[in-house]
């Protein structure tokens, strides 16, 4: 096993005719937490989707735990141990909350138990029998996050998980993510909420126009604050 959870090189990606990613290179070691920062439309969500092969076309190289995946089908990539929490949440209206939670198949051992998850998100326990899309916006967000914790995936791609959540929940989610990091999960976070990201990440990538324009290590946060401000307007 490689010590790299993810290695991306010369990555390009398209939606139909529009060329979104123009050759990215970055890598994430096993057990690291990194964030992708940037403005609306910079292409951060697209990076996550491209890793899973969800865009219409992609080129370059993506190695997941050492396996080249550029020519693999989405479901095969996922089975290498990736858990994905999409931006639009993707809750299924024809399934109940609990069915939504149980939906993603286990792809490796070591996932969390249902009890553990309900303890973490009591709202979900309360609403477990109602149809997934009848949940409030925030509850759906929790559900989207919770359901990938069960699967045993070790590499988590989390897209704007704090969006629409009450501050207390955001805080709690921060705790969850650090706990996951402690357990050795590898996490890629896409965030608008810089404060949230800053506490958690080992490294930040700034994305603009489909390229990585800056890398900021945790230690450099103080020195590069000005720079980040310029890119993100924080």
């Amino acid at each position, binding site marked *: 096993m490689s010590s790299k959870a993810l290695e991306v090189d010369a990555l390009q990606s398209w939606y139909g005719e529009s060329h979104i990613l123009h050759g990215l290179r970055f890598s994430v070691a096993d057990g690291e937490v990194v964030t992708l920062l940037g403005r609306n*439309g910079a292409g951060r969500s697209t990076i996550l989707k491209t890793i899973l092969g969800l865009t219409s076309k992609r080129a370059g190289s993506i190695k997941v735990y050492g396996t080249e995946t550029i020519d693999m089908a989405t479901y095969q990539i996922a089975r290498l141990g990736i858990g994905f929490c999409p931006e639009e949440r993707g809750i299924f209206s024809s399934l109940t909350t609990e069915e939504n939670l149980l939906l993603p198949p286990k792809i490796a051992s070591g996932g969390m138990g249902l009890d553990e998850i309900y303890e973490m998100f009591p*709202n979900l326990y309360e609403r477990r029998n*109602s149809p997934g899309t009848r949940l409030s916006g*925030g509850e759906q967000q929790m559900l989207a996050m919770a359901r990938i914790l069960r699967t045993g995936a070790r590499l988590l791609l989390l897209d704007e998980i704090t969006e629409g959540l009450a501050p207390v929940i955001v805080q709690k989610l921060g705790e969850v993510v650090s706990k996951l990091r402690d357990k050795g999960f590898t996490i890629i976070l896409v965030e608008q909420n810089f404060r949230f990201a800053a506490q958690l990440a080992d490294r930040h990538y700034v994305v603009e126009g489909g390229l990585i324009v800056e890398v900021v290590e945790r230690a450099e946060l103080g020195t590069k604050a000005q720079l980040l401000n310029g890119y993100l307007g924080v």
Partner: protein
Amino acid sequence: MEETILKTIGLGKSFLGFSAVTDVNLSVSRGSIHALIGPNGAGKTTCFNLLTKFLEPTQGQILFNGIDVTHERPAQIARRGVVRSFQISAVFPHLTVLENVRIALQRELNTEFFFWKSGASLNALNGRALELLHEVGLESFANELAANLAYGRKRALEIATTLAMEPELMLLDEPTQGMGHEDVERVTDLIQRVAKGRTILMVEHNMKVVSSIADRITVLQRGAILVEGNYQEVSNNPLVVEAYMGSHGGDSL
């Protein structure tokens, strides 16, 4: 004119035995920006749905300008001047930005059923529509299809359309959700600007926005009102801190 523009008495809604909103007595005073906050699933969106009659209340009464509107249809409520935005942005994607706004303006002409009338008669509305677009900074996009706008601009368009209805009361559901910092600031400014002469009731999780513009805040929890007050009062209330704001005082940004 009454001081209170909107008042609910014992408003409640339950879904198959689960009560999402219980006994809410809300009063919104004219001319204010009133924020509705609370934990996820507290019933904020449901309240909005009840106020605009997208949902039928199981209990209680809704008074708008002192008139009981509990049993009116959604379109009637809108005609009274209560207009909402949606949690997920709602525009007419294949109409141009200008047409989007015109749809809302068109009602005042009272020609909406005139299928024999020329479409050119609507050009009379262009001036006003452009004015509104100017207000939200979109006039240069007037002939663009709404579908091609960036997210933050779609929200701005939605607000412009809502304004076109000359609403007395605007209901905004998480207007800044999913926006980058610049957009958040732009929309916050926008809300403040359009609030002049109107009343705004908004749901928002971004405490920066709430603290900077809300005159009054109602905190919902589990479908019921927990406390009410200005930002200072609410953010220092231990119940609110525990249920909603968390130890960072909600200022996670």
